[in-house]
């Protein structure tokens, strides 16, 4: 049974991604620092209680997890504070969780994937990578993650490892609830369907990239935004 490590699996897109992989017959290593809204009771799930701001612990952690066929870097954090009043601690947290941790996880998972000449990594970006974002560091880290996706694809592609990303538009998750109304209205105006994305839909895209998409597709970012950001 193939195994997926999914970060930020406690809620939102991560939880639905865990559900989607389970439904496809995978076993799931569900990583989060908070499982209070995690309700997936399934024999195929192993919970990993871990705070990704602990960057130094990531490599030792991955060493204990055994074989990882697919890594989904989904965990992300966002604050939405004024540009000129972002607390240093928040900046550090966003940089750690949204950028440094995914890179540390890719780095830690890469050797075993290269050895097997197989493996997939899916990074969860955001349209914020293209548009900028009221949370400056959120946008900046998402753009950086999409860039790192290409670098890692270039590095690992020769060994048969695929590194792709999804860039969802606003998706109905707890994070969406944090957005100001004006932003939500803007989204509603621009999407073709007149509704926000559901986490299940993003999860389907992640599952495809993480399990079945053609191997020639590497280093790419799949826009899941329904017209809220054509580019």
């Amino acid at each position, binding site marked *: 049974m193939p195994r997926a490590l999914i970060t930020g699996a406690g809620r939102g897109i991560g939880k639905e991604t865990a559900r989607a992989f389970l439904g496809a017959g995978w076993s799931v290593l569900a990583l989060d620092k908070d499982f209070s809204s995690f309700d997936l009771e399934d024999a195929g799930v192993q919970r990993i209680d871990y705070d990704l701001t602990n960057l130094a612990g990531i490599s030792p952690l991955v060493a204990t997890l055994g074989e990882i066929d697919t890594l989904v870097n989904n965990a992300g954090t966002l604050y939405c504070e004024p540009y000129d009043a972002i607390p240093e601690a928040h900046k550090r947290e966003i940089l750690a969780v949204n950028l440094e941790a995914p890179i540390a996880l890719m780095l830690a998972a890469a050797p075993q994937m290269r050895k097997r000449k197989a493996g997939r990594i899916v990074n969860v970006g955001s349209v914020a990578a*293209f548009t900028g974002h009221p949370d400056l560091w959120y946008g900046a880290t998402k753009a950086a993650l999409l860039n790192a996706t290409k670098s890692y694809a270039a590095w690992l592609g020769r060994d048969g490892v695929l590194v792709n990303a999804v860039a969802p538009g606003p998706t109905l998750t707890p994070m969406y609830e944090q957005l100001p109304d004006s932003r939500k209205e*803007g989204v509603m105006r621009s999407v*073709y369907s007149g509704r926000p994305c559901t986490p299940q839909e993003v999860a389907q895209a992640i599952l495809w990239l993480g399990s079945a998409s053609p191997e020639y597709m590497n280093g790419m970012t799949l826009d899941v935004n329904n017209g809220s950001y*054509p*580019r």
Partner: protein
Amino acid sequence: MPGNSVALVTGAARGIGRAVVDALAGDGFHIVALDRDFEGSDLVESGSLALLKYDLTDVAGIAALVASLGRIDVLVNNAGVQNGLAIDDYTEAARERILAVNLKAPVELIRSVSRQMLERHRVHRAGSAGRVINLTSVAAFMAHTDLWYGVTKAGIVSFTRSFAAQLGPQGIQVNAIAPGPIDTDMLNKFAQPERRAQLMQAVWSRRAGTPPELAEVVRWLASEAPVILNGAVIDVTDGCFLR
């Protein structure tokens, strides 16, 4: 650009093209201002400004037209039409017209003008052999209610790169500009107040760009842009479309 360089500007009678005439004249260019209709335009012919009445739907006549003009150093493909029609309401005539003016004519102009640019450049070799500036639109990157408008503007992005690749090694620069909403007849005709207000919400300055602002970008590409800048599309959107 040297004092007696000549720029051919299409769609020059009004709007962005009209502002481009002023901007390039300010840099010392002699200008051939092309439009199908100068009615209501304040352009006045002079020693450094020739008015050329020509309908660009006559694509077949462009090569001969260019041959009759003499030296052209800069070509500004600005002329463009928009019909504001839903796809089901498009007539064959409207489709053929927009394809001719927005796509076929600029391609034919580049073909014709680049030939003489290369001919002249064979002598000098160094520096720029000539510059082409194509006006596209953010419509190239997004869904547009006038399907053929969006399609033709996307086509301009594509041929900008094709010509840059083909002509760049021989010293010709081919770049494009993709404006967001600019205060022109076209915007006023197709963006009614409600749509316009909505558009402005996405613009950081909450206003439409002005033709002189856009003309300054054209001027820079025509006069100053380094030769290494080729095949580029410069977005002038003030935030209404980031990519």
